[in-house]
């Protein structure tokens, strides 16, 4: 058992938000999913105050050693999440982390307050890769804005608050420091890197949403650099992610300063990737000790 923000976890490997749908997986894989749940905690897809349809297809493009997605955060909204998803997710044998996004501080506050009341939710992750309506910049790209947002929502919950940082910023460590100063309990990174693909027939951008986010092994070394910079700057725990495919990749993020490692694209290829990587990671510690 390891401890993260006061939460006991079986191992150091969790899923990246938006990269595993436990309720869909339960439909597809049945009871085996509950018996062999691959992650030490389950991080939900991003929940917003109101339902979102998501972006028009096409939503995916396979790139060199990676994937560009433009999904657009489809979800049924906070009400449906509280009413039907949380009770279903409570069956999972691991702690539930709920990821939320609001386009204003008021919205984020409302989301956090609602989750604070639910004992099934072990931690709250804030997706701050949402454009500020006034500036057009991602809320999470501005260290002072991030500090102000955190200071405001910190008062609303006693649950651990994790800030999912955006990598699409000039100084990710400054953003992490802003989140810490505002009262965040942990930061997680990296989110996907902004990327685009052109339609093979030359008709313009391929993805229905225009640009998308790049993930997969293609971004792993960038993740390593950003995790290292952030971990050197803040005292709160860091959840590292970006292109991790095996225990050795996870071990490198831990060595760069991450407390936990999250798996995203690799669990599209292998639904049990989380458990496999956790085993391989454990093996890497044993090897060093010898």
């Amino acid at each position, binding site marked *: 058992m390891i401890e993260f923000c006061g939460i006991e976890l079986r191992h150091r490997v969790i899923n990246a938000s938006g990269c595993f749908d436990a309720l*869909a997986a339960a439909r597809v894989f049945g009871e085996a999913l509950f018996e062999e749940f691959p992650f030490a905690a389950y991080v939900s897809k991003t929940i917003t105050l109101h339902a979102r349809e998501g972006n028009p297809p*096409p939503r995916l493009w396979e790139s060199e*050693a990676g994937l560009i997605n433009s999904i657009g955060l489809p979800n049924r909204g906070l009400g449906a999440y509280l009413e039907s998803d949380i009770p279903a997710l409570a069956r999972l044998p691991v702690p539930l982390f709920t990821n939320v996004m609001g386009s204003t501080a008021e919205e984020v506050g409302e989301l956090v307050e609602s989750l604070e009341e639910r004992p099934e939710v072990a931690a709250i992750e804030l997706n701050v890769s949402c454009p500020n309506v006034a500036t057009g910049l991602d809320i999470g790209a501005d260290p002072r804005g991030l500090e102000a947002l955190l200071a405001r929502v910190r008062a609303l919950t006693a649950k651990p608050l994790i800030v999912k940082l955006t990598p699409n910023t000039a100084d990710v460590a400054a953003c992490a420091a802003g989140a810490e100063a505002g009262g965040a309990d942990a930061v997680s990174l990296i989110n996907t890197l902004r990327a685009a693909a052109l339609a093979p027939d030359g008709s313009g951008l391929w993805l229905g949403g225009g640009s998308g986010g790049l993930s997969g092994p293609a971004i792993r070394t960038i993740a390593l650099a950003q995790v290292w910079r952030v971990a050197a700057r803040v005292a709160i725990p860091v959840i590292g992610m970006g292109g991790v495919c095996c225990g050795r990749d996870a071990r490198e993020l831990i060595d760069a300063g991450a407390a936990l490692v999250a798996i995203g694209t690799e669990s599209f*290829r292998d639904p049990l990737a989380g458990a496999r990587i956790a085993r391989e990671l454990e093996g890497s510690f044993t090897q060093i000790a010898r």
Partner: protein
Amino acid sequence: MSAPLARRSAPLLERRVLGPYVVLSTIDRLARPRPGQFYMLATAERWGGGEGERPFLARAVSVMRTHEDGVIEFLLEDVGPGTKRLCELEAGQELTILGPFGNGFSASGSETLLVGGGIGIAPLLELQDTWGGLALLGFRDAEHAEGARLFTDAVVATDDGSVGHRGLVTDLLDRELERAPTSIRACGPPALLHAVKDRARRHGVPAELALEAPMACGFGACYGCVVATVDGYKRVCLDGPVFEAAVLA
């Protein structure tokens, strides 16, 4: 029945060339797919590295035919880095499989019309083997029309008229609709499915359409494979790949 929660190795038992298509035979000892279901396929070697670092993600491929002993056949055409790699695989080498996924077709009957275009003929074969029904198959040319050899009872149309009817498979469908079929099952390119949906509505014949969409996972995680329905976007992997024509927007 649930899909096994495990990506696993499966030997390529046989590789047969059929015009521009390749039939891959493998065996799944853990699951028995239903008609219209699919697997996520990759090769065990040279996948996720090498030139261009593609293919990286597994490819969704519908089951063409199953056998009593667990042998499963897939129909492939080399149209990109993933299908190219799968088509190059030789007997004795290993596939990586995950599945079977998706809802599959509902039971059809001898009065069901099976309408397929190009590589989309694959899931219809299992239907014909299981429940019979006349297959109406459309292809680009005589080379592609080799695919029709897989079927016992098929009428063929080719774009260039080199085999069978010169024109679209929907011309054949129009003719058959006069005989009041009980239902239609179709799979093929979007334009074909659109035309089938249109005719099914006009003639009041229920139709099930098997859709294709690029997907990263196959089990509802990535939300990448959505299709517009009267109820909003639905994931092709989870709520499909077979949809009643009437629910598609």
